[in-house]
């Protein structure tokens, strides 16, 4: 079923709304279908960030104390105020700014493919990260926290919706703005085609963190579809670089 065929989607709206993000789990008409079979859109392919808004916040490492748009509490401000780029630890800790709560805003290329009938894999060249979106599976409560955490996914009203938890504490912004291991990331992936043939993927994120945020941090970013792996440029995690 393709997004353009929204007549069927309309009939499913009521079911989807009531079932919410976990629509693919447990009983209901869609329970027997895999995430791939139930896909109401095709997100596969390579996508590139188009950074036409918040350019300085995204294309440069923001200076210390640059908190525009962030609903930070005092604890977060205190931590961010103590940030010292010269003292960022080496190795894996350089990936603090590439976690699931932040990575969609880092200028990147995404490559999205099905890794199985119930798993959609997103490779990200900036920081060489991998996100896995799991359909029809319970949250892996035993999985150790990681930069990309554990993402449950479902098709809701034509879009991919995902909720990510089990996150390792990281940076919401590369200038040391923290998020905690209690962070929850809700994302909506909306693909559409414009009359000129351009394919766009808009990703809306709602980040909540009871430890460091006073309220939800909501953002929306755009990616444009490009030929497979065009310009693909994997980089290591780098604390002092914008990507």
């Amino acid at each position, binding site marked *: 079923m393709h997004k353009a065929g929204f007549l069927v989607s309309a009939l499913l709206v009521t079911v989807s709304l009531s079932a919410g993000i976990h629509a693919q789990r447990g009983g209901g008409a869609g329970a027997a279908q895999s995430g791939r079979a139930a896909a109401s859109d095709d997100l596969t392919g390579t996508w590139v960030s188009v950074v036409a808004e918040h350019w300085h916040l995204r294309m440069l490492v923001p200076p210390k104390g640059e908190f525009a748009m962030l609903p930070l509490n005092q604890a977060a401000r205190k931590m961010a105020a103590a940030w010292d780029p010269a003292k960022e630890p080496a190795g894996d800790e350089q990936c603090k700014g590439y976690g699931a709560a932040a990575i969609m805003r880092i200028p990147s290329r995404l490559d999205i493919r099905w890794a199985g009938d119930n798993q959609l894999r997103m490779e990200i060249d900036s920081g060489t990260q991998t996100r896995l979106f799991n359909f029809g599976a319970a949250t892996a409560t035993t999985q150790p926290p990681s930069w990309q955490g554990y993402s449950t996914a479902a098709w809701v009203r034509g879009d991919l919706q995902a909720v990510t938890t089990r996150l390792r504490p990281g940076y919401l912004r590369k200038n040391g703005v923290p998020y905690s291991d209690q962070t929850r990331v809700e994302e909506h992936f909306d693909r559409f085609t414009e009359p000129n043939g351009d394919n766009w993927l808009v990703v809306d994120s*709602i980040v909540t963190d009871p430890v460091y945020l006073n309220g939800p941090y909501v953002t929306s970013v755009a990616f444009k579809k490009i030929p497979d792996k065009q310009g693909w440029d994997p980089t290591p995690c780098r604390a002092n670089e914008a990507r």
Partner: protein
Amino acid sequence: MLLTLSSAPALAQVDLTGMWRPMPRNEDGSGMDGDYAGLPLNAAGRARAQSWVPENFDVPEWVCRPHSWDFSVEAVAVLRLWTDVQGPTQQVRAYRGRIAMRDQETTIWMDGRARPPDWVRHSWSGFSTGEWQGDTLVQTATHLKENYIRRWGAMRSDQATVRIRYKRIGDYLRTTVIIYDPVYFDAPYIRTNLFWVNDPDLQMPPYPCDEATETVVERGTVPHQLPGKAILPAQNPDLTDRFGSPYEARLGGTETMYPEYIAKIKTFRRPPTVFSETPERGQ
């Protein structure tokens, strides 16, 4: 039911109507007037932008200059959306919108009416039709007046076609604006904001604007700068902002929108002096 849905494409898939409160935003974060980084300006668009000077705001005819609808949906103020329902059929004939700041309104015709000929008068909100794509309302506007895409000179032309996608995400409203401008842009310009929260208790405040002289501009004068003479701080090669942005990036252009430009930024000279204006920060 299928028959009903297929014969009524204008039917709303979700309810977008009501009062929407803007959330904190940041237009571009640099704090320097004349910064076009991330904008797909071509040579004409850059020349147009560089000709602008702040005294434009003091020209009596421009003191109350409206912000066009496509600029206003960057969530600058309270938004109300409502429907115009045709009595006998109870079909939604149009979506209407109002944004408090500078009294902006739009009408998005859903009744399939034809777009007017090219010679019809242009306005701040232009002429708009709408369609539902799934649960997204898509507005297509033409017949627009030239207007800001940044409040320091960067413009889209009156020949632009603007498409705005309205999508509800729970209690949030997202607007995604894509501007196609054959005059000032080399590529489509996209801006997406998940910046509105549904708030039924909001009141729509009036926005009275009276012409007032803050800086005297001699009658008949059109404040401007000639090509290559821009005085805006971001167009000064020796100034930078608190981010350390290079002058070359601030000229804008399609390449500045893509991740690979980050590597190029590092090859540019860092201007020696930090512009001192204190920008808006945080909440």
